[in-house]
């Protein structure tokens, strides 16, 4: 090998990247981190999952309810769009339902979670310890009086009494003063603790409107966010003032950040967290709330779950805050997406989830593929026939180009649909354009009597300007379509941009290298073109 060349290096990188992303299609049993990069097929080719959601507009005014469905569809679409180029189908179904179809099933759970989150962000003050104690006592008493409304608690109560006092006549005296609810919630290090085995029953109670009535006015009970890393962990129960100090509508922007390992704050050191920025009004409210409540705790509550409840040490101006908690990185980024796309206008609940089949018959896939092969063959043969050896080089590189397009689509998490495949086939027709431009120019230079070497140099020098200008114009359009478009437009823009970049690289760098390395030397007299 001669001296080091950037061109050679770029070709090596080009081939390696292509091979990396295409390997999972060809080789089974690759490690998980590798094989998860696999080209997804769209709803039309392979189907996927469908989730039916019902929008609950009972709490909205009639005017709001009318727009709520469309508004929710818009928000769901934005969330899925931020999740990647998934090419979902989102449709209104009747008056109250939304149908969401997503291709493939691999990421379905995460996507479903993302769609369903109402993302009601609220800042609420934590009750003072003595208030908390009183609140829980009242709740306990209220529940005990109306035990018949809570069959699960009643059952638990019976069981407890049996365990504690097999002789049932003594049970009442033994349990005097404390009710069944207090057996679930014990005073903990901070606030109260719910043991892992009781978490589900407490969660159910908190969601129960009857139970909510047992809580004194102005207060609210909430669990702390579960730590997804720990399977069986006790959860903290916090008593909050139900007054909302700040809400999601005060939020301007949410962003995932990663705390540095040198950070002195243990809550963010080496952990992902979400930094939020508030709107002007929100920032002012935040300043007032923090100023008025120094030394108290302010809870950041999302969908009724306490994410963190830091103490207020000082008045905070500027409207910046952090949501910390035991996040995994993907949880944090999902949450940021949800916070940025805004609250769902009305709560939604899933009605059904099912696997769905492809919308196109297998025959249309087969004929689409066949058409592709025929088209590709025609182009390859033409180039071979018209440009001889140089045409062969262009054909050889074209194979890598097609590979590169598929590889990059995989890397972008794009979804391949039948029209997408047709688009790629057309790209192949257009991909040889850069080669044709350059070859025609080289022929012109050869006609002027130049040697192959200088004809190639001169031809490239001129034609490359043309290739840049013509392709860059289209690339600008693709970038804009990606940035501002949504749904199918984005998918189209990605395919277009990848096709342009691939074919430019192949014609300008790849083909030229082969020509100059293997075909022409300084002394060659003829060039097969």
């Amino acid at each position, binding site marked *: 090998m001669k001296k080091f060349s950037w061109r050679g290096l770029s070709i090596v990188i080009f081939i390696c990247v292509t091979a990396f992303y295409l390997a999972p299609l060809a080789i089974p049993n690759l490690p998980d981190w590798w094989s998860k990069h696999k080209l997804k097929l769209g*709803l039309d080719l392979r189907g996927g999952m469908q989730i039916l959601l019902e929008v609950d507009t009972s709490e909205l005014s009639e005017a709001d309810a009318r727009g709520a469905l469309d508004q929710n569809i818009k928000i769901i679409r934005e969330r899925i769009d931020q999740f990647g180029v998934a090419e979902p189908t989102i449709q*209104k179904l009747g008056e109250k339902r939304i149908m969401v179809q997503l291709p493939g099933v691999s990421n379905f759970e995460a996507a479903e979670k993302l769609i369903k989150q109402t993302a009601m962000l609220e800042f609420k003050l934590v009750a003072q310890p003595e208030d908390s104690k009183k609140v829980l006592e009242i709740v306990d008493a209220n529940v005990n009086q109306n035990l018949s409304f809570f069959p699960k608690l009643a059952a638990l109560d019976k069981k407890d009494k049996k365990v504690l006092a097999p002789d049932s006549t003594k049970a009442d005296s033994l349990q005097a003063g404390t009710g069944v609810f207090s057996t679930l919630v014990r005073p903990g290090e901070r606030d109260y603790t719910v043991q892992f085995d009781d978490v589900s029953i407490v969660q159910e109670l908190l969601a129960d409107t009857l139970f909510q009535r047992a809580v004194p006015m102005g207060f609210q009970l909430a669990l702390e966010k579960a730590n997804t890393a720990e399977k069986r962990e006790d959860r903290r129960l916090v008593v909050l003032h139900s007054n909302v100090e700040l809400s999601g509508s005060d939020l301007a922007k949410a962003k995932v950040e990663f705390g540095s390992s040198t950070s002195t704050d243990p809550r963010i050191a080496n952990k992902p967290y979400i930094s939020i920025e508030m709107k002007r009004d929100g920032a002012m409210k935040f300043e007032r709330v923090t100023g008025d409540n120094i030394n108290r705790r302010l809870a950041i509550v999302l969908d009724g779950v306490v994410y963190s409840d830091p103490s207020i040490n000082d008045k905070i101006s500027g409207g910046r805050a952090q949501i910390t908690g035991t996040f995994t990185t993907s949880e944090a980024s999902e949450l940021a997406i949800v916070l940025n796309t805004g609250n769902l206008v009305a709560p939604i609940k899933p009605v059904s989830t099912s696997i769905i*089949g492809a919308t196109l018959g297998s025959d249309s896939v087969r004929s689409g593929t066949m*058409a592709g092969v025929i088209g590709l063959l025609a182009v390859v043969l033409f180039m071979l026939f018209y440009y001889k050896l140089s045409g062969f080089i262009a054909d050889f590189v074209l194979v890598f180009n097609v590979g590169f397009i598929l590889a990059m689509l995989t890397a972008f998490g794009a979804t391949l649909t039948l*029209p997408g495949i047709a688009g790629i086939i057309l790209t192949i*027709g257009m991909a*040889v354009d850069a080669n044709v431009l350059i070859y025609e120019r080289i022929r012109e230079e050869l006609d002027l009597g130049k040697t192959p070497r200088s004809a190639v140099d001169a031809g490239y020098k001129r034609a490359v300007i*043309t290739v840049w200008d013509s392709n860059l*114009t289209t690339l600008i*359009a693709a970038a804009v379509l990606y940035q501002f478009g949504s749904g199918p437009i984005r998918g189209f823009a990605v395919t277009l941009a990848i096709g342009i970049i691939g074919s430019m690289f192949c014609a300008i760098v790849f083909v030229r290298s082969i020509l100059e390395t293997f075909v022409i030397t300084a002394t060659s007299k003829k060039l097969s073109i």
Partner: protein
Amino acid sequence: MRLMQNTNIPFVGIRYWAYALSAILIIAGVIGIAVNGLNWSIDFTSGVAAKVNLKATDAKVPPLKIDKLRSVLKTNGYPEAEIQHVGEVENASFMIKIKSKTSSSDVSSDTKGKILDIIQTNFPEYVAGKDLAKDVIEEIYEVGPKVGGELRTAALLAVLISLVLMIVYIWFRFELTFGLMAILALFHDVFIIVGIFAITGREITVQIIAALLTIVGYSINDTIVIFDRIREDLKTYRKDPVADVFNRAINRTLSRTIITAGTTLFTALALYFFGGSVLHDFAFAMCLGIFFGTYSSIFVASNLVIDLAHATHKEKSTIQHLTKRK
């Protein structure tokens, strides 16, 4: 072998014929759109979605094949029906989406009857022993468009912004006149194709929109290649009349224009003839697009640049005007 070597076709000389042809095509398109309207597909309009259970009560009857259901609905007045399995294949539960011909709310009950009729006549063995009113069509809804108004506005905005930025880029690299005329030629191409779709009553689907965007990309590419040669030749042949320089540039790029149009047309024709019914209209739009995109690059875009430059400048200053940037 060489195609189109040393041609000297008077493209600039015959430009008024080309303008006339384009005008006729565009006017025909306008009339077509005015008379027939655009046939928006189910992607853009509301329709009816029905969940149909066709699991035979008799266990000996094999599960209904989806392709069979597709072809039956196609031949019975619902060629645009979109059908997919819901749940496991052996449960033979299908989601059928069809376009509603009217917009009244009782359309679902009307459609329900029609679908039931079709199913009963064609697949009696799959509905035998079921209550036709309840058990076959389990749910039926009015279904909103896949691409609703909001998405359409966003897409339109994105396209407009990208057109403006393309003009700016061409302005920067060439001259404003080139940018404006290139975009005008794009509108010309898209308009003619949409007009043909209106006249022939073909459906405008999301795929057709993608085809139109691809055509825009192809056509601008083609136009810029010719512009680039004009820019180069304007600097080389400073003494020649502008019209001659333009004509020479178009002729010298002709072989490349024809070859690229040819290879792309190969692939589009392959899709048209072998790609199956789904890709038929998509490939049709692409074939038209390649044809008119090439035509507009040769006959319309650069000729309009000459006419506009002549209209605003004297012959002598035209070259300076067109080459003042780079």
